């Protein structure tokens, strides 16, 4: 056994982009790999759940968990990893705020399963087969994890020490987080997001081009206009969420001439990212007339998907109202 600090990675409800982000560290990854022992990383390293179960509590220095919590298996795994780790990090927007999978909280489980297994045009499922929690044939049984009604953030399931924000976290942010952990000194208080605590405008190259008063009579979507590469995107009528979004990404999207969509989430002082983002955008609408305001705001299709794109489960709303939001039932089947 090496005496290098042990590190684990785990993947919950997410797209896999966060795993890519680690690979994106490029040659930096080699330094990290040299400095630590990766004891668990299902996507890249061979290892079994039983290996973790066999470890002492706190044996792992740090576990990076990406993805939101959607299934019973994910919940079990994060509890296990929590127990075995000194430091647990929420890695990426989904673990941090619920992320894109968290938008499922607009619906209930049945609606989601129905869509996925029955009603999309590409689905052919005449027998209406649905996944089962357990299936037995010839005395052999297999099981599948249960599927919760509600998507949760990592810190709604277990105690989280630090958060590495972003969809996906950018190399500078990951590098900073890993560096801080390995050096072990000057660690911020638990619960801290490992990124600057101001909004993105602070580091945006276009900041000084924003007029003191922006008045929008028509919102534009990026594919509808030729975007000026120097001028503040809000001033061009694009929904840029930089004012509400934590800095630290190096304004990568804006550098690529695309507005900020808010993946770093809010600053520590904001309790509902979407509410603040919506307020910032709505306050730019140039009208006092209710009907006209409605018309202008209709230029933002899918407001939940725009303002709560990464943060619906972490928001004050959390999800669309329902009676038993945390029920785990066997998905319906024949």
């Amino acid at each position: 056994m090496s005496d290098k600090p042990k590190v684990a990675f785990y993947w919950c409800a997410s797209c896999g982009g966060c795993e890519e982000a680690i690979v994106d560290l490029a040659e930096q990854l080699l330094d990290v790999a040299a400095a630590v022992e990766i004891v668990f990383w299902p996507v890249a390293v061979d290892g079994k759940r039983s290996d973790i179960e066999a470890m002492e509590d706190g044996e792992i220095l740090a576990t990076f968990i990406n993805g939101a919590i959607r299934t019973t298996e994910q919940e079990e795994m994060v509890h296990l990893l929590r127990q075995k780790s000194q430091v647990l990090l929420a890695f990426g927007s989904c673990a941090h705020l619920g992320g894109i999978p968290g938008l499922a909280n607009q619906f209930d489980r049945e609606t989601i399963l129905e869509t996925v297994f029955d009603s999309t045009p590409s689905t052919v499922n005449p027998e209406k087969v649905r996944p089962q929690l357990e299936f037995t044939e010839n005395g052999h049984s297999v099981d599948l994890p249960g599927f919760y009604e509600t998507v949760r953030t990592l810190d709604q399931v277990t105690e989280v020490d630090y958060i590495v924000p972003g969809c996906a976290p950018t190399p500078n942010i990951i590098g900073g987080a890993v560096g801080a952990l390995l050096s072990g000194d000057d660690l911020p208080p638990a619960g801290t997001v490992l990124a600057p605590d101001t909004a993105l405008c602070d580091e945006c190259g276009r900041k000084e081009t924003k007029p003191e008063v922006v008045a929008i009579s028509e919102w534009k979507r990026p594919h509808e206009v030729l975007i000026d590469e120097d001028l503040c995107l809000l001033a061009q009528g694009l929904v840029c969420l930089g004012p509400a979004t934590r800095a630290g990404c190096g304004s990568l999207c804006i550098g690529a001439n695309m507005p900020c969509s808010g993946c770093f989430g809010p600053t520590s002082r904001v309790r509902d990212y979407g509410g603040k983002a919506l307020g910032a955008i709505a306050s730019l609408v140039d009208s006092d007339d209710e009907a006209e305001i409605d018309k202008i705001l209709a230029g933002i299709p899918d407001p939940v998907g725009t303002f709560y794109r990464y943060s619906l489960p972490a928001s004050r709303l959390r999800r669309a109202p329902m009676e038993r939001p945390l029920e785990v039932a066997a998905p319906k089947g024949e």
Partner: protein
Amino acid sequence: MTEANLSAGNGNGSPRIGVYVCHCGTNISATIDVVAARDVAENLPGVVLSREYKYMCSDPGQEIIKDDIRELGLDRIVVASCSPCLHEETFRNAIADGGLNPYFFQMVNIREHASWVHKDIKAATAKANDLIRAAVRRVRFHRPLEARRVPIDPRVLVVGGGIAGIHSALTLADAGKKVYLVEREPSIGGHMAMFDKTFPTLDCAACILTPKMTQVRAHPNIEVMTMSEVVEIDGFVGNYRAKIKHKPRYILEDACVGCLECIDVCVFRNGKTPDEFNLGLSKRKPIYIPFPQAVPQVVLIDPEGCIEFRTGRCKKTCVEVCAERNAIDFTQEETFSEVEIGSVIISTGFKAFDARRLPQYGYGRLDPVYTALEVERLVNASGPTEGEIVLRDGSKPKKVGIIHCIGSRDKNTNVHCSRVCCMYSLKLAHLVKEKTDAEIYEFFIDMRTGGKGFEEFMLRVKEEGVTMIRGKVAEVYPEAGNTGRVVLQAEDTFLGMVRKIPVDMVILATGIEPQADAEDVRRTFNISCSTGGFFTERHPKLAPVSTFTDGVFLAGACQAPKDIPDTVAQAGAAAAEALALIDAGHIELEPNTAFVVEEECSGCKTCVGLCPFSAIGYDEGKASINEVLCKGCGTCVAACPSGSIRQNLFEDEEIFEEIVGVMANV
């Protein structure tokens, strides 16, 4: 702040909280179980002591708090009693006396918000408990603050130049304060200038009013702006700025000496336009002066009647006669000016009820029917008939009926009593009788003569032979046979029979209503109106000339119908309130300002354009708030997308703790 450490003990350090539940006599204790509320409060986290007491606002009540602070080392105080509007300051002062920062205090309104609006004792007590819990949770996060001191601009704006505005303006000016008196009509004087005599003493209105009007004009401390209206006001108590619109008079006010020669030589030999001041009972020329004693003594031109305005081809005899004075200027346009003042007195007066709204009385349809205000002009020596009572057909009336309560005390028009109509009707009865010796019938519902010398005056008029009939006139209709007379039909409730009395003249005692644009004025000055549309005083008994906007005071009939003595008394009171404010030299403002936490601000500028008071600037990549201009509205605090603007007394923790507290049992 997570839920876990919210419930753990006292949160923000270990504050020692004292909770005081007031009975308010029985105002609270009749509907809320104050002992139970005290017991519940006692067990809340951080609460060291909880008491209930009959009157917390009384001296002994305040002493209890002071003693507890000293003896038990309390460092947060919650008082559950009435509205903070009433006693927040009382308790803050008591707490400061006790040696604590006065902002370590939260007041809970369990009177207006609970006991007065509920009947069920159990439910009302539960609500009081929720509200107290919210305050206890909140007060833990209070920080020591200091009231802001702002100097008071000693200048005063008086809006409306009737007797109320005139009296306020003179009182203030005599005390050495600069006054801007804004009047929308061409002359100051208001309704009082239209009257002949005043009740009950029958002294001549002009004799007592016109000297005051000329004093206003001559006073070095008063700047009169006629044909002007306040269109916008911003700022706050002690530091207001008003934008004033000046309508064109087409006369250079400083050049006109009031010789009135231009009126004589106007190409119109006779007036063609109904004279507004005489309520259309006479005609005036397009160049005119509203009435002989007008102040300023300056003519004006009505562009709708003037040939030069209509065709551009007038001989302009007025300009000729004005000669080198050259006071006529056809090119004048609307202008705007701004004044800075520290306080405002609103004395915009009233509107007489439009008698056409009650067609059964025939006003505007039957020639013999007049409104009281028209008769005021008829009996006035400088009125359209030089004081002769002559009917529209040229005859003198021999029988006159006066109908009280037109547009007052009537659920179809106005429910309120206009207070002055009984008395002015008696006055008109006396004057008409004196001038014509006509038989006079007064139809009244109740004779309201509550005032100094009022009852005596009524008895005198009765003795003069005026017939008093108690009963509401149902209808006024032409007498059969084309006599030109009309018949008043009413039930005489003394005799218990219907009477039909033919008369030559009917006088409708029209009531007092708010000005047609009272709602605009209300909005401009950010004050409130009661249901009838009259402006609301801060407290009906204890702050009768103040409003809920600090530094804005009320005088006269804009607040409620009142007679001249009451109006003048109120105008004096309003002036005294303004003087008290001015002489204090400064005012302490609630330290509820917003501030930008500079190192947190990203400079996104979202707040800059949103501030209704232009208090936010942007400099070197950061926003900053001018504390003097900030009114604490909270717009920027709510809007700041990165949560970098905070507001004293309304910190996020304080608000969220309050919500958690109030929702604890949900």
